[in-house]
């Protein structure tokens, strides 16, 4: 038990939590912004894979990590735009488009990897770059905090800032108002002259861009290569986090941290010889508990509404 507490309150655990949570935050922000516009983007997983590969390939050929990141984000946006085209212009079902993107991301990235690196598993033959870690000026003077918060990858800070960005965008700008209006009731939004299609396009492109950051983090910060199916379900966990966070930016951030901590905990606990089956269960148990809490809160809210109407 002492060891258990020692692990949880160690600085390296706090550092690990931030590192594990970063890709979830990006993907969850992507889920949130499209959800606000009334389109559920379940293609996050595929978009992350496409961006992860793009980042690696571009950084390897240009020898510039930032160009790699930029192209990864652009690739994510373009994939989001393609989804919007399928769903809005060609009138396909948005869920099916998302599944298609996921399947394409899973298989297409391996195909592209084989063309570029002549390998179907990992991009290790390419000299790809990683994004730098940065120290935060004032915080790196504070004893414990500096070891947890400072010295993280630059994308971790961007992830945290992106939550603020999404909050301002959705709640404080005219565009955010339009996005929310379209999400709440698109006919009403249409009747007052909002171009529903344009707003949904913007939401999906932004969603793709966030997932693009998440993908770049996976291959250019978390590890230093692209490998097949490397996101392993993180896009879906992000969707769960967004639902659990009640579709609000800060709620979602908290939910991401809950998932991230559960994951980091399950990683650290293994060394205590807690049975592996139990440890590997933790993140999923937390997911189920979180969803139960969320839905029970939601149903009680609905009951109250119905009650007040009476």
């Amino acid at each position, binding site marked *: 038990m002492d060891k258990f507490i020692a692990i949880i309150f160690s600085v*390296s655990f706090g550092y*690990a939590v931030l*590192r*594990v949570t970063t890709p979830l935050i990006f993907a969850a922000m992507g889920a949130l912004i499209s959800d606000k516009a009334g389109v559920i983007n379940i293609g996050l997983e595929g978009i992350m894979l496409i961006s992860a590969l793009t980042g690696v390939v571009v950084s390897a050929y240009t020898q510039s990590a930032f160009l790699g990141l930029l192209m990864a984000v652009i690739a994510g946006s373009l994939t989001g735009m393609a989804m919007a085209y399928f769903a809005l212009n060609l009138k396909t079902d948005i869920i099916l488009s998302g599944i298609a993107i996921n399947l394409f991301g899973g298989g297409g990235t*391996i195909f592209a990897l*084989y063309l570029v690196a002549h*390998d*179907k*598993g*990992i991009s*290790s*033959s*390419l*000299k*790809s770059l990683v994004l730098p870690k940065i120290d935060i000026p004032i915080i790196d003077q504070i004893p414990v905090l500096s070891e947890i918060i400072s010295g993280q990858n630059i994308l971790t800070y961007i992830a945290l800032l992106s939550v603020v960005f999404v909050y301002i965008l959705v709640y404080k700008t005219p565009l955010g108002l339009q996005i929310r209006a379209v999400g709440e009731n698109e006919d009403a939004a249409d009747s007052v002259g909002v171009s529903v299609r344009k707003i949904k396009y913007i939401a999906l492109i932004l969603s793709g861009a966030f997932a693009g950051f998440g993908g770049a983090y*996976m291959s250019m910060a*978390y*590890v*230093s*290569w692209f*490998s*097949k*199916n*490397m996101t*392993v379900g993180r896009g879906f966990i992000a969707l769960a986090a967004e639902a659990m966070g009640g579709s609000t930016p800060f709620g979602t951030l908290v939910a991401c941290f809950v998932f991230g901590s559960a*994951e*980091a905990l399950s*990683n*650290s606990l*293994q*060394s205590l*010889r807690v049975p*592996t*089956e139990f440890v*590997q269960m933790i993140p999923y148990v937390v997911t189920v508990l979180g969803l139960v809490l969320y839905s029970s809160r939601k149903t009680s809210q609905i009951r109250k509404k119905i009650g007040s109407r009476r």
Partner: protein
Amino acid sequence: MKRTLSLLLVLMMVLSFGLTGCGGSTDTVDEPSGEEATEPLKIALLLNGTLGDKSFFDSADNGLKMIQEKYGDEVVTKTIEMTYDETKWRPTLEDISDEDWDIIIVGTWQMQEMLQEIAPLYPEKRYIIFDTSVDYENYDLGNVYSINYKQNEGSFLAGVLAAKVTISDMELANPDKRIGFLGGMDIPVINDFLVGYIEGAQYVDEEIKVEISYIGNFDDSAKGKELALAQYGMGADIGFNVAGQAGLGQLDAAKEVNRYAIGVDSDQALIFAESDPEKANLIVTSMLKRVDNSLVRAIDMHFEGTLPYGSAENLGMAEEAVGLADNEYFNTLISEDIRNELKDIEAKIMSGEITVSSAIGMSTEELNEIKDSVK
């Protein structure tokens, strides 16, 4: 229209076969016109995954290439990637069994049950399964040859090496007598590596502690890195990854905190030798599982007529099926004393002077006891 087209295509195929056959025979007039020259041996390798795993699927494919090179016209070889989609495996195995292949090679425990059911239906075919053994007692499998690897023996050497490194005064070693083991899943094959590793480490020093983690799959290299970082954080200065692609995360972790690592299955230092020499310099060696050698050996024996179909063989160091990678990193990073000692131990294992326990068939209690002995 479609029928005429398909008829035409069939005609073309038959003609082309006939013509190439003629071309072949004109070139080989000198060869004796006995039975050997008539039909090449057709060998199909079915992978229940894709190439590029930097592990035993790539190695099996390499084995097939070596066979093709060695026997030339006498064999026809083909590698079929069935992908990781499990629903494709059974139909593919049935289809290939229906075709005119002579020897069909499959691998891993995931194919075992399917093969047990399908092989008896095709008694005239020959099957080879590697990295697991079929159940000969309850099924009629006189046409199946199984290859098991003594990964516990190879891992014993890895354990000896890791222990030697952690108690040494090597540049990146710390005083803590602690080493790491990163497994893919908590399954018998992986635990066989673990048991050999632990016994090897204890052979050098009883006080060695081993940090043991399982990733839970063979894909998630990011999680592999997390777990490895946790192990290095607990004071391990060298780790052994046995987790396919997911295990590569350990190598990234090693570079991040500047500690040593031991690779598995294929020579993992060579994967990064060009793209990331700094990382390659931390991979002291890799515990190789030479599926390729074992397949070449099997086909050699098939031609000699000595391959024991209907039984399983355990291949170890004597058959060059397992062993440590002897590369430039190993030779520069590891001192000559340790290298010589490893050679002595290798000889002792081969002669039977050292026997290494196996986790295959071991009860959970026994396994836990071994794990707890290094807690």
